[in-house]
């Protein structure tokens, strides 16, 4: 992240306060760090059993954007976190996310920076490496990204697709949006509803992973499961298409759909 230009002012690692890593001072607590340094964001890499604790600490100290990279955060903890974040008027990205990147400006996450390029397509995704796959394909095609938001693979997350659509709506740099979804839950269907109801002013394209997933088996992500009839790829694709969202058959199809859009402008 430092190499990319992100200004990391402090690190927190209980028990390791006092050392310096790569020129960054380390503290035992967030409040100590916050006393000496101004920060408006935090990124949490803490293992799952303690990730909620670390995030609560950051929120309590007044950090307004917390990116939780950690996978396997218990649902109960996530529910409590989201509630407290709301109380503190803060945003959580994740958990189980690769983070956020605004290519050319800032990276708060673990994504490989070299597949991204600055541009004007906003990307919101439930996946990690699938996002890189699609970003790489866009970059290769000369289509850059304004900001990529990893909403994460868990059932309970901070910002979701609808929040992402709102953010991209307000962002002058974003001219089109890509949603990378997957089976499980109904957040894509709700995003489709939002797009329809709001007459969303920017073009949206999507890719939904998991068409081949069987019912009742979870495909990796805690949130990726089809229960009964709910959460199928078909249902998401149908809802999105009904809202005017073009859905790609393959990850590389996203670049084609966007190129077509650019062609018609």
């Amino acid at each position, binding site marked *: 992240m430092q190499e990319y230009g992100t200004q990391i002012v402090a690190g927190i690692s209980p028990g390791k306060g006092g050392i310096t890593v790569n020129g960054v001072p380390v503290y035992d607590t967030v409040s100590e760090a916050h006393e000496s340094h101004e920060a408006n964001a935090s990124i949490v890499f803490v*293992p*799952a*059993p303690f990730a909620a604790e670390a995030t609560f600490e950051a929120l309590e100290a007044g950090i307004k954007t917390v990116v939780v990279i950690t*996978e*396997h*955060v*218990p*649902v*109960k*903890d996530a*529910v409590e976190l*989201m*509630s407290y974040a709301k109380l503190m008027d803060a945003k959580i990205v994740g958990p189980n996310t*690769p983070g956020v990147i605004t290519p050319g400006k800032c990276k708060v996450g*673990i*994504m*490989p920076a070299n597949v991204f390029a600055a541009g004007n397509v906003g990307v919101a995704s*439930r*996946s*990690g*490496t*699938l*996002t*890189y*796959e699609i970003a*790489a394909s866009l970059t290769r095609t000369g289509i850059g990204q304004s900001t990529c938001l990893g909403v994460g693979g868990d*059932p*309970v*997350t901070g910002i*979701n697709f609808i929040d992402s659509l709102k953010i991209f709506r307000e962002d002058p740099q974003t001219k089109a949006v890509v949603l*990378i979804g*997957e*089976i499980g*839950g*109904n*957040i894509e269907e*709700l995003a489709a509803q939002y797009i329809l109801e709001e007459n969303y002013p920017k073009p949206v394209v999507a*890719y939904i*992973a*998991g*068409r*081949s*997933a*069987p019912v009742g*088996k*979870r*495909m*990796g*992500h*805690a*949130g*990726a499961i089809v229960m*009964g*009839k*709910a959460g199928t*790829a078909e249902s998401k694709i149908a809802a999105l298409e009904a809202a005017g969202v073009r859905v790609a*058959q*393959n*990850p*590389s199809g996203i670049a084609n759909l966007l190129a077509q859009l650019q062609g018609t402008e």
Partner: protein
Amino acid sequence: MQGVVFFLKLYEHEAKTIIATYGVPTPKSEVVTTEAQAREVAVRLALPVVVKAQVLVAGRGKAGGILFAKTPEEAEDAAKKLLGSQIKGLTVEKVLVEEKLPVKRELYFGITVDRLNRCYIAVVSDLGGVDIEEVAQSQPQKIYKQLINPELGFRSFHARRIAKGLGYAGDQMSALADILEKAYKANVDVDAELLEMNPLVETQKGEFVAADARIILDDNALFRHEEYRLKQLQEERDFSPEEFEALKNGLDYVMLEGDIGVVGNGAGLVMATLDMINLYGGKPANFLDLGGGASLQRIEAAFKILLLNPHVKVLFVNILGGITLCDEVARGIIQAQTQFGSSKPLVIRLVGTNEAKGRRILAQADLPVFDSMEEAAKKAVQLAGEMS
């Protein structure tokens, strides 16, 4: 990366043991593994009894997994019929012998997670004893939902409101409300993703008893429930032998029906790989996610699991390495090939961190590498097709 595990579905008898601990009334019952035991239990319980297959599928009643017995002999026969049989693809290894309740009314009460609202939700219906998802589709007005505010939790007044809504008053209202509250407490304490009582029965006497219970534990919370973490490793439950092996090795694996073994880094990427194989006319044999930053050992273990499936004809590795190192993956592949001596064709797509190093390692072993996921998928499908 911590050990990846699957969520833990509990058997009916396990779920009932849990809620009973919290004070929810459940029918008198015992779980048994032989028909002789079933008979013994039926002698001790009040007849008639119900003999219920303990299998981790919904709709076992319709599938013949629930039988009634008026005598101990009938209970023995019922158990004999069920034990060893298959209900929806799962073998019945134990049955629950339970006192049959004199039912007046069947209710539904469940607690699960509402993703959009980021909190738990209580779901209630007076159409209990049937598939709640069907009710939600065909008669949505029969379902009452209440979001559970994380600050407040599910309190006695919430429970009373629901009990009243179901038409109860006075002592019955209090009794039912008490049970709902206790069910909620159980849900919270055990870190359940789902807790259901369907049906929650009102007996002829006006008492409330959970005739069936279902709990799915959040496996991400098993680190704080040692008893259940160990339970998960003790029996296959609804996993195939390969899935169970993967579970024990901390690998995220789902068995499918095809012949192209797939492994990749990242659940979304792997799902997309499976979709792509299908699109090109092939059939994936499995889902297998290495997760991020996989070690040599992990990759070896992954290959081992892939090769356990006798239907696999071709192996397809799809790596887009961010924190996952391409050279580590390459070494893992070589090691696995050496160890397991597989002659099955290997299609490798390897891009990302340390890509050049990784490809050099594979080139030395004469293993070609693809740049493009699409090209690699097409090749894998072609090879599998040639081998049919």
